[in-house]
């Protein structure tokens, strides 16, 4: 049976009609036109569909849409503020942390969650935390570097490289 699902998407309230079996990824991509989260496998393996649910990274392909009722969902579309890229986005860009970019929305959301929890992760902690996100273009080394420079404050809003 169809139901109305209400939640906060990238800071704004949304209402959308969903069925009980639809996933958050289905609803974001097919019903709300939010295509940042990618469908890499639809199986929970690749991490390209990662979004933050109340600040925690979840696989939107494994999340039943109705479970996010009343909660906050952040996708890559909500990362930049007023057209100003998030420090992680700037660092990914300048350090070449992607090739095709398909994994990038998921990588950015996982990286944000990592730094929110642990602002100065070690290289090992980055590798462990990010290991649920796959990149077929093999940009891992550049992604680690980008996360490290953000952790070091290089792209901080004040003083750092803009």
């Amino acid at each position, binding site marked *: 049976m169809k139901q109305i699902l209400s939640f906060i998407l990238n800071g704004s309230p949304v209402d959308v009609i969903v069925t009980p079996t639809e996933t958050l990824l289905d609803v974001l991509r097919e019903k709300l036109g939010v295509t940042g989260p990618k469908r890499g496998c639809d199986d929970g393996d690749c991490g390209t569909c990662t979004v933050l649910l109340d600040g925690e990274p979840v696989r939107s392909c494994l999340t039943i849409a109705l479970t996010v009722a009343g909660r906050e969902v952040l996708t890559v579309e909500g990362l930049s503020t007023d057209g100003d890229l998030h420090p992680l986005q700037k660092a990914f860009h300048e350090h*070449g942390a992607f090739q095709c970019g398909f994994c990038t929305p998921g990588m950015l959301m996982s990286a944000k969650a990592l730094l929110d929890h642990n602002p100065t992760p070690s290289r090992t902690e980055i590798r462990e935390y990010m290991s*649920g996100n*796959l990149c077929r273009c093999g940009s*891992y080394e*550049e992604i680690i570097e980008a996360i490290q420079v953000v952790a070091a404050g290089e792209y901080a809003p004040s003083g750092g490289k803009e």
Partner: protein
Amino acid sequence: MKKKGVGMACVLHPTGNKGAGDPSNAAIQLKPDGTLVLLVGAVDLGQGSTTILRQFAADLMEVPIEHVFASNFADDFAPLSLGSFASRVTLIDPHAVENAAEDLKKKIREYASDLLEAHPDDLEYKEGKVFVKGAPDRSMTLAEVGGASMFGGGADPALLVGTGAWQPARFHPHDPETGAMPAVGAISFGACVAEVEVDTETGMVDVTKLTQVWEVGKAVNPLLVRQQINGGLHPGLGTTLTENSYPYYPNPDWAPENFSDYALPTFLDYPEETLWGIEEVPHPAGVKGAKGFSEGSTNGPPPAIMAAIHDAIGIWIDEYPATPEVILRALEAKEASG
């Protein structure tokens, strides 16, 4: 017990096929505002081919790169490129872009000759301007030429498009005296050193450190070269240790269906330490000495890792991937044979 080993491999990576023909075409159009549209058929899958071809066009037309537009969706209507594969674009497409730039400069001189009242041969093109030799005051900017060619203004309107095509000289039979047989346009050279730890109880191979150095002619865009070196490591590692379609291959009915069946390397499978290096020896066949190498960066890690496994446990593993099962069976067989 964990056993350590080191192995290395060298790679010669050929690009630019001389046998079957390996052509690319390009066009550069002057727009009324003086900017340029670069049309190339090479599709950028993320490796940066559009970026470097824009760099070449800007460099050859002596304008800022921001003045050169190129679409990655142009392959339906752009002049054809054989494709962005086999590391061929960096060697071949810049020649087509170079020829298109020369052609456009010639057309700009011809078009401006009426307006500047001088013979085309007496005009020179430099840094986005065409001017009378010896009288640099009598000049037009690209925007002035572009605007005039679109809207008229002393001369008939014209569409100014430079076109270019190129492919490596076709293959010729080998020289019986010297044995020389130039089958490819250029060869790039790479070296890879891998350090591993093999767990003899679980059969797991951990690549702890991996270094790749590539000689690329000219690193047109060092950031992109680095991405290609480190990116090639991904399928290289996967081929060697995890990516497996056995026992189903080649039956497509049993193809792996997800990333659990077909394991791609994760952040944790990447070496704790990954080092990379670029060497530049300008290649005579490339524009500005550039040649392709990227695919070769996948080819170094597999033999280097296998050699490191041999160094660690004294066994040459002769099947890919060297999964824990393969390693454990090899260790058992070695023990059984005394």
